[in-house]
């Protein structure tokens, strides 16, 4: 029975994970340092530090930047284990796969040599060093992004996109997607429960697939209906295709100080690395 319900279980778990990850906003609602900053200041800090991380080729500099991120995470009361694991469990997998071929294509000296028949595989020391720097860059950048997302509510995060001159219609569509994703996840959850309550015997793979397809069709039809209704609701309040928005943000001294500090740190990181380009 359990084996035949894998599709249903997968959908349920994916929906539950998305809901927990995106919609709880538990950490973003805490009264701590990063959470109290204006989201535009946070976005500026994030961009400055990501730029410095991307351009830095020095492991010590990247280590300093990562230490700064960890301190910021600590004072912002984000759960430390969760934050570190979330970043470092995925990075070796994705960044590692990208970087592996380059390890064998670098110039001498070599760290390791291995013969496999007619082919000799040699891990180049400069390539291994570059791989390490690459993984460190990805790690710091992803940590910055995770920290920004953990400490900023989605609504604020979307609004700050306007600072980057992202068209308002794009921001509105994103925010509506975010809004209705939740609703459809709940609908999906309800459909799963309704099915489970009526499923008595075993169901085969073909039956499972048929049900999944039917559910997708049902959700799609509902989403079409809802999009039409939502447009009516927008139209009823005067929407004619032009998006207008309201900003309630105010930059305070603390916001400017945090932004200035981050820009200075980024500038220092950019100025420092030349002395440490290689091992």
């Amino acid at each position, binding site marked *: 029975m359990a084996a035949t319900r894998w599709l249903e279980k997968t959908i349920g778990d994916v929906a539950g994970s998305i809901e927990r990850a995106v*919609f709880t*906003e538990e950490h973003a609602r805490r009264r701590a340092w990063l959470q109290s900053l204006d989201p535009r200041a946070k976005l500026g800090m994030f961009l400055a530090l990501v730029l410095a991380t991307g351009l830095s080729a020095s492991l010590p500099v990247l280590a300093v930047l990562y230490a700064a991120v960890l301190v910021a995470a600590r004072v912002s009361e984000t759960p430390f284990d969760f934050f570190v694991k979330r970043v470092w469990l995925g990075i070796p997998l994705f960044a590692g796969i990208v970087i592996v071929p380059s390890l064998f294509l670098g110039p001498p000296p070599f760290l390791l040599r291995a013969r496999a028949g007619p082919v000799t595989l040699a891990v180049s020391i400069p390539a291994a060093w570059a791989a390490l720097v690459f993984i460190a860059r990805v790690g710091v950048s992803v940590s910055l992004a995770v920290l920004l997302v953990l400490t900023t*509510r*989605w*609504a604020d995060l*979307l*609004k700050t996109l306007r600072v980057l001159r992202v068209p308002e219609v794009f921001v509105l569509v994103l*925010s*509506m997607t*975010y*809004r*209705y994703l*939740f*609703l459809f996840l709940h609908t999906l959850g309800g459909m799963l429960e309704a099915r489970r309550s009526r499923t008595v015997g075993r169901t085969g793979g073909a039956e499972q697939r048929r049900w999944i397809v039917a559910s997708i069709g049902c959700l799609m039809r509902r989403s079409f209906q*809802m999009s039409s*209704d*939502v447009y*009516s*609701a*927008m*139209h*009823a*309040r*005067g*929407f*004619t295709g*032009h998006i*207008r*928005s*309201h*900003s*309630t943000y105010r930059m305070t001294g603390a916001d400017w100080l945090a932004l200035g500090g981050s820009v200075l740190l980024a500038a220092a990181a950019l100025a420092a690395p030349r002395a440490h380009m290689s091992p």
Partner: protein
Amino acid sequence: MSGGESGRTPVFRLRDLRYRYHDRHLALGGVDLEVHQGEQVAVLGANGSGKSTLLKLLDGVLTPSDGELEVFGVPVRSVTGGSEEDAFRFHRRVGLVFQDPDIQLFSATVFDDVAFGPLQLGLGQQEVRAACDEALDQMGIAHIADRAPFELSGGEKKRAAIASVLSLRPDVLLLDEPTASLDPRTTWTLVNLIMELGRTGTTIITATHQLEIVPLIAHRAVVLGEDRRVLGDGPARQVLADRSLLVSANLIHPRLHPPG
């Protein structure tokens, strides 16, 4: 029975108004009605009798298939199909609260939803802020202004949906099943809010099939029959006392609602 007044330009004048979904399914079949400024009217009808369709027509969201509809003396086709300015003026005066608040609350936060209407009308930032604060206070939901709609309870969603229309400061408020699926305490809170709005002279048309709230929120009741036409129209208490009318409109059932 007739509940219309004479001598003044009515807010709504409907003559043989019909609407068909997809040009096929008849949703409203020949409605004649007049509603005057300051009236509080309950539109009663069973499921599928055309209550929601009628409100959407009155709000200009739907365009009539046949018949005439005038709002403040102006044909609704020329208002909603006219210039952007005409549409602005129309939607500023007439506000519709949809039955499903999840449709109405499409923004990331309650404040954004309440601000949506005033912003579309081209109001300045300070005016928008003032209109939103007033609407949020009026509905008693200022404390949840920065919450996401999916975090709200059913009652809070309904209040947020009403606030999103009140921020337009409309002369006419159209409410589609405002108390459906709510518990008694939340229902009472909303009924109280509708009564307060009525006292301010706002014209309110409420579609409902919850008969117990009708005497509280409306002076006049219009009954839509299952043929999607007006079956009765008159003072709310008089309409509610007419059992045969309510039975024929499928609003009560003789076995479920015995006399007395």
